[in-house]
């Protein structure tokens, strides 16, 4: 029974195999083709996936770059413009706007290379002057999924707003020409080295590219806010007070303009901080959320302090608090949890309130629009708090599971943060003093007393912000 069945079965197998054996060579050729086909499909899919991620990241980064420019363009110009007297509004707005033009050209010509080109631990080299080698291919060390030109233009927006922040300290009394020269020199002497040290390849403080002192600064607490704020203080002290300050009342001429400006700053700051993830991934979400929470908590912190001391919550106080919080969360966003962001915002909001309201009048300097009180103080406190609150679950920058901030057990990080802050302070003080001295000797920093009384709009620009007669 079993054999009778087995025999035809064997025959069948033999019959089936015969052509297979005969066609073996042909079949082998087909498999090779199929494998090649599959490999090609896989490669195509991988390329398409990479292209899609690259496109997604690039889209977010271009939007972020535009958002950061919006912080200068209408944002800061309106915020500062509303705080000065109405005879100085155009002069104040033009100081920020001039940065949008001048720093851009300078960046393309040379300062990008000094900040992000290959160099030593302190400053970049001249390999990328005239944007040489800054093309559409990514630079893997900076951001693997976006064109290097996107990275370049994104970083440019930071280089624009940073000097623009300083203008708040010398508002209503500096010559336009002197301001331009000051800012150009400042971009060379202070911004470029600081940006290189913290973010550039091989920078002394770079936490992700092997710096000697890895200082955590996600979006520019030291590079942007400490440098601008401390330089602002130095400038305010060097220039002296505005005529009549503090006896002559100089209230803001339009808190409404400042209000709009501050809200634009808040929105633009999402590009500033979440964009600093240099991609559209989860890290951008962390930074976005932390930014928002920090700003909200600081607005509340400043407002409550004001409420307790003055009995009222002012609009100017609330928006100033929000801006202070955004400054404070700048180095921390992308390293901290939303709850830590609330703490950072609250601490910075209250601290900046006391800097602006009490400390400034104790020392009597005329930091006209509180560039130091908000950016210098907020940036310093934020940078130090970043070292405390940084969490490896949000951003394992030192390796997965390795403690990042003090609260995770990396006490040494506090020292790194302090080193970063100390370098930013020193560089800003020395660099700014040298520049002020040179510009003062060559063209003079302040407008004449007459021009100061008449206002910057008329004397520096030959026009008026508000023409009541027409």
């Amino acid at each position: 029974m079993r054999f009778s069945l087995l025999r035809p079965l064997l025959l069948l197998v033999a019959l089936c195999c015969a052509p297979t054996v005969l066609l073996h060579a042909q079949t082998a050729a087909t498999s090779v083709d199929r494998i090649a086909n599959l490999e090609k499909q896989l490669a195509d899919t991988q390329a398409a996936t990479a292209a899609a991620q690259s496109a997604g990241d690039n889209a977010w980064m271009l939007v972020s770059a535009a958002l950061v420019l919006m912080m200068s363009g209408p944002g800061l110009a309106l915020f500062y413009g509303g705080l000065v007297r109405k005879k100085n509004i155009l002069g104040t707005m033009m100081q920020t706007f001039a940065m949008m033009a001048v720093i851009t050209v300078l960046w393309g010509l040379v300062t990008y290379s000094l900040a992000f080109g290959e160099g030593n631990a302190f400053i970049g080299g001249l390999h990328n002057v005239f944007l040489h080698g800054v093309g559409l291919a990514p630079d893997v060390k900076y951001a693997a999924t976006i064109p290097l030109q996107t990275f370049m233009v994104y970083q440019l927006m930071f280089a624009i707003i940073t000097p623009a922040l300083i203008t708040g300290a010398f508002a209503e009394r500096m010559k336009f020409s002197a301001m331009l020269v000051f800012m150009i020199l400042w971009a060379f002497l202070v911004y470029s080295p600081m940006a290189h040290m913290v973010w550039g390849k091989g920078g002394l403080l770079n936490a992700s590219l092997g710096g000697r002192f890895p200082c955590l600064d996600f979006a520019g607490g030291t590079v942007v806010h400490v440098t601008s704020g401390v330089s602002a203080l130095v400038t305010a002290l060097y220039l002296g007070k505005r005529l009549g300050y503090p006896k002559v009342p100089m209230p803001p001429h339009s808190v409404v303009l400042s209000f709009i400006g501050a809200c634009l700053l808040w929105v633009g700051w999402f590009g500033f901080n979440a964009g600093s993830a240099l991609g559209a991934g989860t890290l951008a979400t962390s930074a976005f959320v932390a930014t928002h929470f920090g700003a909200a908590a600081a607005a509340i912190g400043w407002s409550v302090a004001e409420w307790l001391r003055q009995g009222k919550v002012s609009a100017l106080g609330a928006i100033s608090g929000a801006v202070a919080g955004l400054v404070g969360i700048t180095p921390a966003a992308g390293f901290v949890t939303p709850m830590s962001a609330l703490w950072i915002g609250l601490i910075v909001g209250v601290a900046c309130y006391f800097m602006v309201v009490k400390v400034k009048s104790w020392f009597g300097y005329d930091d006209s629009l509180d560039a130091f009180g908000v950016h210098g103080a907020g940036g310093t406190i934020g940078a130090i708090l970043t070292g405390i609150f940084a969490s490896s679950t949000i951003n394992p920058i030192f390796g997965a599971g390795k403690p990042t901030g003090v609260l995770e057990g990396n006490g040494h990080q506090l020292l790194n943060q302090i080193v970063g802050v100390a370098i930013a302070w020193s560089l800003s003080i020395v660099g700014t003093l040298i520049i002020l001295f040179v510009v003062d000797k060559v063209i003079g920093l302040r407008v004449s007393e007459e021009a100061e009384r008449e206002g910057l709009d008329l004397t520096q620009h030959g026009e008026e912000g508000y023409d009541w007669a027409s």
Partner: protein
Amino acid sequence: MQKIEAVIQPSKLDAVKDALVEIGVSGMTILEARGHGRQKGHTEFYRGREYSVDLLPKVKLELVVSDEMLEKAIHAIITTARTGKIGDGKIFISKIDEAIRIRNDERGEIAL
């Protein structure tokens, strides 16, 4: 002819103007003004710095009326502009020697 200069609260301008037109006042000039009397202004705070604002926004009415119209006009202003609180304003009366209509050189009360 008499000139009435009345400094009043800006919020009362419409009521006062309507009352004056009602009694037959033919014209007036309105000026936006700042000033203070016994009401000493208020205090504002900007980033903790205190600013005392002692000149407050007011509206000044100027109108020239005939002698017989004077009391009626004063009464109209007082009743409509009064809130009873400090800061209601003041009225000043002075004599006018001549009024001239530029268009046709008419003189005296007919020019009002």
